[in-house]
């Protein structure tokens, strides 16, 4: 491009804005840049319309449109503009999009422009330029660091009633929409030999080296355009511009099947064993997420080696009012000019302590931007020609509340000068981006050569660092160390890679004289702009003894803003070091934690949100039950039919009462597939069960079923269920629904870890069989219509089991066991026939007036029968508590039997499971009530136990309850208070047997 062309273009774009409120032309758009001028995108900020181009970020587009004021600070609500061009941005935070897709606190610097983008400023009222909370700024002397720890304590009640609500409303940044996030998110898993983090010069050289060697490579970069600073600089790489070299290299990498390029992908954290978290922004750059697609994907990357090429982040120099909109990092200023052809102003000054800042001067001049002055804190800096270069000078103040209008400079001779300008670039040097290297709590070490922290020696296993991230601040060194780093990392895993011929690039060692803050007596100089931490706050923390870096951080909130101190921490440490007289290394750093940049909570959840939080398990009769209009209930992961309402039934109790009465009066069918079923085989199967159950199993006959209780090793009851012996060497164990997984795990533990030579094989068969309970006096009659063989009392007595066929030849299993206390069976067929079987049985039941019942009726009947279930098997109850002490056989080795002997578990007043009924027949009882002796005061000291389960018994016409009562076994007939303060309920209850129905068990054996 010739000078003429450039100025021509400049003339064209430097058109002043026409009228307020209409779509402005891009007043601050320069020539060149990596934007697509052939397309125009419309966007709004605070409702005002603007134009942008593809390739813009919101920040670049706002600058190009002459907008410098983009946000307000957290505490003082100071007007703020953008200070960076990357993800480290602390100031330019906006609410992006609207409605349910509103994203608060979104950094304008990383918002990729799309047509129709809507952004709104935040943390201000009523408007960004006039914010009533700006009054905080006037009161700032009272709001010094930690002031809130020293006041607001009186009167006591005022904290919650007055002070805190005010503080909470004033604090916070953006607002959530308060609507459910409508977008979908994916999670994914990737594997590679080498993960390269960052696609700047070092990352590209590394990926090229590794890619050409054939290794599996992932190259990830948070930007939408790969190249890192190469896109922001005018420095040549070989014979090309850096940006062109980057593009060519990316093109070569894209052609390699063994290389995966991941743009818009931030490596968010280094986790154990080479696992990295990565967030890919799949659709954030689109106006609308396409149907079926996700907004973002959270990747878990399994890497054998990782090379961090994350570059460096420029740091500011603190001076009074250094937070004015228009003041930004010098490197950002030239990034906006070079990559985005945007500038915050027409007249720009630069304040630097190093040579890199001078590059901004050169680049801006090349773009035709007027340089107001260069303030160089180094008296010995190399002199620049053609601009006013004030060596040995410092910026001591800045004017312009809503946008910079001038800076005040103290020159080397001590004079004070005011220099009008509308933007100021500040360079305090560059900090290697060590964040990721510290995620395993490694502490970075100080490097005097570049006056910055570099990665320490105890990095996460498998991680190495190259380029600016390790302190090599020249392009040539970045390229070289990137390539060498990749080769070395691959050599480490036995994969050889040749170093590529790298292009020539600038290799000037950076020259810098540290300057952290400009000394000042009055005014405030910002260290952490978002959280409004000033140099004075750091000094106050020191004065009050909060000198450890962690105390400093926590007391002042330094580095706790949304940028996690990327631009502020080192400056804060330097101020503290100056106070204590220690070095910065001695002062130390706080801990860098994941994620590298903030990640939407929804992305961590992925698909497992809302109703898809966990999979649903459906029973074999689910389809049929749905057709019947069943009400379903979550039981662990299962959905079970809770009851089956019939026309005319208006309350659940009507349905449940009907199901219970029909079952006890005739027959009822219930899907019990959810109970765990474990197939136990082997020559030692019987002995194995003998050890995992507290009661004996060795001598159970073939064709017989036995009820058993399993204890944990600490003597508490783990689970109860049955074991059926199908053959000498073959059992089927059932567990409760809730404990199916845990019991299986426990059995494998016993088999593999305790008795590894037992001949026992285990496998879950829960899912393989559709199993139904058929209970009630007509159970046999009904089943006899289904089962092909004789199931008379003689052929299949109580607690018998058999392999049979049903419906004319389908293999099935039948167990004569009962949970309800009725004559009952459980019948099992291969799951695919479960739907057919429930239909057949429901049909057959009609003849008897039978029903299909749900979990509520199941629960009522088990309470009526006094069977313990989940509410009783709560992990703190022993066999003794449950009235089953006799089952714990002391003559064999069984899990839990030894420790069940401890004195605390065998006290005379131990809790016993007993039944309760209300003394007044129509009185209500509630599970969770506590028992108090009649006449005693209801307090904890008088607590006698608690009610575990309560149900209305339609058979008895009153509530029935089970509960644990101190010495309950010996208190039958006693009347107690069952108190339930949280329901405002108290019932006089009588202690009775837990077996309300058929205590002799005659029905079972009928």
């Amino acid at each position, binding site marked *: 491009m010739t000078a003429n062309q450039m100025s021509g273009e400049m003339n064209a774009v430097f058109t002043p804005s026409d009228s307020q409120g209409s779509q402005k032309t891009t007043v601050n758009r320069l020539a060149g840049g990596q934007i697509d001028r052939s397309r125009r995108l419309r966007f709004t900020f605070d409702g005002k319309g603007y134009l942008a181009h593809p390739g813009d970020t919101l920040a670049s587009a706002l600058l190009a449109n002459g907008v410098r004021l983009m946000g307000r600070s957290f505490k003082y609500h100071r007007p703020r503009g953008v200070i960076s061009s990357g993800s480290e941005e602390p100031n330019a935070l906006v609410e992006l999009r609207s409605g349910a897709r509103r994203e608060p606190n979104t950094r304008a610097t990383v918002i990729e422009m799309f047509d129709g983008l809507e952004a709104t400023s935040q943390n201000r009222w009523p408007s960004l330029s006039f914010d009533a909370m700006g009054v905080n700024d006037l009161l700032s002397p009272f709001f010094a660091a930690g002031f809130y720890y020293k006041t607001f304590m009186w009167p006591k009640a005022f904290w919650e009633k007055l002070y805190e609500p005010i503080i909470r409303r004033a604090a916070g940044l953006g607002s959530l929409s308060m609507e459910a996030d409508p977008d*979908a998110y*994916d999670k*994914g*898993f990737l*594997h590679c030999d080498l993960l390269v983090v960052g696609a700047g010069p070092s990352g590209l050289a590394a990926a090229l080296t590794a890619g050409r060697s054939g290794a599996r490579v992932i190259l990830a970069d948070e930007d939408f355009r790969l190249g890192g600073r190469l896109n922001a600089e005018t420095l040549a790489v070989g014979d090309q511009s850096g940006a062109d070299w980057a593009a060519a290299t990316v093109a070569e990498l894209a052609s390699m099947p063994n290389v995966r390029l991941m743009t818009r992908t931030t490596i968010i954290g280094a986790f154990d064993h080479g696992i990295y978290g990565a967030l890919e922004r799949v659709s954030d750059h689109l106006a609308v997420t396409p149907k*079926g*697609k*996700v907004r973002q*994907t959270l990747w*878990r990357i*399994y890497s054998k080696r990782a090379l961090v090429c994350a570059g460096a982040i420029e740091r500011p120099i603190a001076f009074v009012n250094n937070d004015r909109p228009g003041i930004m990092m010098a490197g950002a200023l030239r990034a906006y000019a070079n990559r985005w052809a945007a500038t915050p102003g027409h007249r720009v000054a630069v304040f630097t302590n190093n040579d890199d800042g001078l590059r901004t001067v050169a680049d801006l001049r090349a773009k035709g931007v007027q340089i107001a002055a260069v303030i160089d804190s180094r008296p010995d800096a190399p002199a620049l020609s053609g601009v006013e270069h004030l060596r040995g000078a410092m910026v001591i103040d800045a004017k312009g509340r809503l946008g910079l209008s001038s800076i005040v400079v103290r020159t080397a001779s001590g004079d004070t000068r005011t220099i009008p300008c509308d933007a100021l670039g500040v360079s305090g040097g560059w900090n290697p981006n060590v964040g990721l290297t510290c995620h395993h709590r490694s502490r970075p070490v100080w490097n005097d050569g570049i006056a910055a922290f570099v990665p320490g020696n105890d990095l996460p296993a498998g991680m190495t660092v190259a380029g600016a991230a390790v302190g090599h601040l020249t392009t040539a060194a970045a390229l070289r160390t990137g390539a060498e780093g990749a080769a070395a990392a691959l050599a480490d895993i036995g994969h050889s890679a040749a170093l590529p011929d790298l292009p020539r690039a600038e290799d000037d060692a950076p020259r810098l004289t540290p300057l952290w803050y400009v000394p000042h007596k009055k005014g405030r100089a910002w260290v952490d702009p978002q959280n409004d931490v000033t140099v004075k706050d750091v000094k106050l923390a020191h004065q009050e003894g909060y000198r450890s870096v962690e105390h400093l951080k926590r007391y002042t909130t330094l580095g706790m803003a949304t940028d996690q101190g990327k631009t502020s921490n080192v400056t804060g440490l330097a101020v503290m070091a100056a106070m204590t007289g220690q070095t910065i290394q001695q002062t130390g750093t706080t801990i860098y934690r994941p994620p590298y940049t903030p990640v939407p909570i929804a992305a961590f959840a992925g*698909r*497992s949100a809302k109703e*898809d939080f*966990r*999979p*649903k*398990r*459906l*029973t074999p009769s*689910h*389809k049929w039950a749905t057709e019947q209009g069943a009400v379903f209930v979550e039981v662990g*992961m*299962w959905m079970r039919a809770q009851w089956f309402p019939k026309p005319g039934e208006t309350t659940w109790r009507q349905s449940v009462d009907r199901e219970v009465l029909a079952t006890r009066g005739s027959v009822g069918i219930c899907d019990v*597939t959810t109970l765990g079923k474990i*197939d136990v*085989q*082997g*020559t*030692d199967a019987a002995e194995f069960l003998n050890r995992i159950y507290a009661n004996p199993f060795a001598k159970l006959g073939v064709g017989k079923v036995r009820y058993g209780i399993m204890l944990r090793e600490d003597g508490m009851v783990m689970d109860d269920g049955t074991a059926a012996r199908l053959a000498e*060497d*073959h059992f089927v164990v059932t567990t409760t629904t809730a404990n199916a997984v845990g019991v299986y795990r426990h059995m494998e533990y016993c088999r593999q870890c305790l008795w590894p*030579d*037992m*001949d026992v*094989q285990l*496998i*879950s*068969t*829960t*899912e*393989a069989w*559709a199993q139904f309970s058929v209970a009630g006096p007509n159970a046999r009659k009904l089943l006899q219509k289904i089962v092909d063989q004789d199931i008379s009392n003689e052929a299949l007595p109580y607690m018998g089991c058999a392999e049979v*066929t*049903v*419906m*004319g*030849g*389908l*293999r099935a299993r039948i167990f004569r066991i009962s949970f309800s206390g009725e004559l009952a069976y459980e019948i099992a*067929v*291969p*799951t*695919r*026939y*479960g*739907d*057919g*079987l429930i239909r*057949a049985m429901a049909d057959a039941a009609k003849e008897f007036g039978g029903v299909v019942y749900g979990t509520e009726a199941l629960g009522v009947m088990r309470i009526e029968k006094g069977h313990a279930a989940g509410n009783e098997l709560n992990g703190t109850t022993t066999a003794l508590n449950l009235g089953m002490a006799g089952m714990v056989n002391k003559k064999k080795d069984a899990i839990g039997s030894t420790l069940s002997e401890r004195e605390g578990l065998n006290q005379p007043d131990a809790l016993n499971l007993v039944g309760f009924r209300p003394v007044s027949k129509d009185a209500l009882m509630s599970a969770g009530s506590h028992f108090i002796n009649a006449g005693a005061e209801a307090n904890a000291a008088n607590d006698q136990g608690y009610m575990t389960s309560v149900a209305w018994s339609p058979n008895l016409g009153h509530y029935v309850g089970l509960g644990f009562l101190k010495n309950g076994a010996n208190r039958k007939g006693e009347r107690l208070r069952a108190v339930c303060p949280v329901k405002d309920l108290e019932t006089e209850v009588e202690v009775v047997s837990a077996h309300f129905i058929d205590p002799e068990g005659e029905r079972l054996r009928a």
Partner: protein
Amino acid sequence: MPEHRLKALTPLAQARPVITTVGRITIAENPDVALASLAQRRGREADFTQRAEALLGFALPAPGHAVQGGDWGAIWTGPGQWFLEAPFASHEDIAAMVKNAVTDAGSVTEQTDAWVRFDVTGRNATEMFERLSAIDIHRMQAGQATRSLIEHLGCYVICREAGSRYSVLGMRSAAASLHHALVQAAEAVA
């Protein structure tokens, strides 16, 4: 096949298998495979191996592998444990058939209806699996099989043809949820 009067439903509770095509990926419910678990008895390893091989006509696969041969397939599922698969129509009572073959050298358990099987085909099936499980799907070769988590469910993934043909075995009761997860992942890469 026994002549009885009960109709079967697929794991997705349909009369016929559900076949879903999303972009280039097809997800086909496959209920036409009988499955049995086969575990070797302790101290009977040699006898077990010989009998199993006699039945199958090939050696039982090593850890992480699956073998197919004739009507039979075998998948390694754990130390000393395999799943055997065969056509449902001809092998509905697979457990009895296998038990007859291995006798008391092995423990056999019917597993046919414990699982839902989805056959996934398509040239970008790998992209879909990247979004479902931590398995290194790109390195998986035909004849490899392993179990891992897919959306909180322990599932077997069996590679039938690298890059394009896989079977997923998941817990039958969660068939609908698993199907939902597979379809969503397929849509994301469609």
